């Protein structure tokens, strides 16, 4: 089959670009551990308050400047404000006691859906001091616009 020289150029260019994009995503997923913020851990959404660790939500120190934040999202709150030192790595473990909520910290990569029946996890390192907002970005009911939480990094 005859093909124009330029046609070969842009087909090779497109092919290489695709390979590079997919390789970067593949390496970051399999070698660097980047993955979507939900796992296959499930929970009975009607028994959230009796099921560990959600029977005792809050911040727990699990290592050197490393914390686990166990949170229950429900209409229309995220729980008590959190306070962590600068540079802290926080593993958020969140579930919903009622409907689907959003869990987003503007200015960071933290952005996940909180689905009832699932335990959603995401990790973030707070390298800058300041006050961070947690907002619900999935419409969850009449009080949705007032649903927010706070993280104090100092």
């Amino acid at each position, binding site marked *: 089959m005859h093909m*124009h020289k*330029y046609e070969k150029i*842009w087909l090779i*260019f497109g092919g290489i*670009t695709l390979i590079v*994009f997919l390789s970067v995503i593949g390496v970051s997923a399999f070698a660097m551990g980047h993955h979507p913020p939900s796992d296959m851990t499930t929970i009975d959404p009607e028994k959230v308050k009796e099921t560990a660790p959600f029977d005792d939500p809050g911040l727990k120190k699990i290592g050197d400047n490393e914390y686990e934040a166990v949170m229950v999202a429900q209409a229309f709150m995220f729980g008590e404000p959190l306070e962590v030192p600068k540079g802290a790595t926080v593993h958020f473990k969140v579930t919903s006691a009622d409907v689907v909520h959003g869990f987003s910290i503007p200015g960071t*990569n933290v952005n996940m859906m909180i689905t009832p029946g699932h335990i959603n996890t995401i990790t973030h390192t707070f390298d800058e001091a300041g006050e961070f907002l947690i907002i619900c970005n999935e419409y969850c009911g009449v009080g949705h616009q007032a649903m927010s939480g706070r993280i104090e990094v100092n």
Partner: protein
Amino acid sequence: MAKLDSAKSFEAEKEHAGKTEPKLNGTLLSVMLVGGFIILSWIGVYALYLSR
């Protein structure tokens, strides 16, 4: 005779078309511009993801 002539000129045209390549300079430039835009956007989004 006329029929033969037209058939001949068709053959000649076919031959001619096969030998000269169409000019695709503009197409190449357009494809590369779109490709460049896609690559720059991709790098921008990925850099934003890594930096936050």
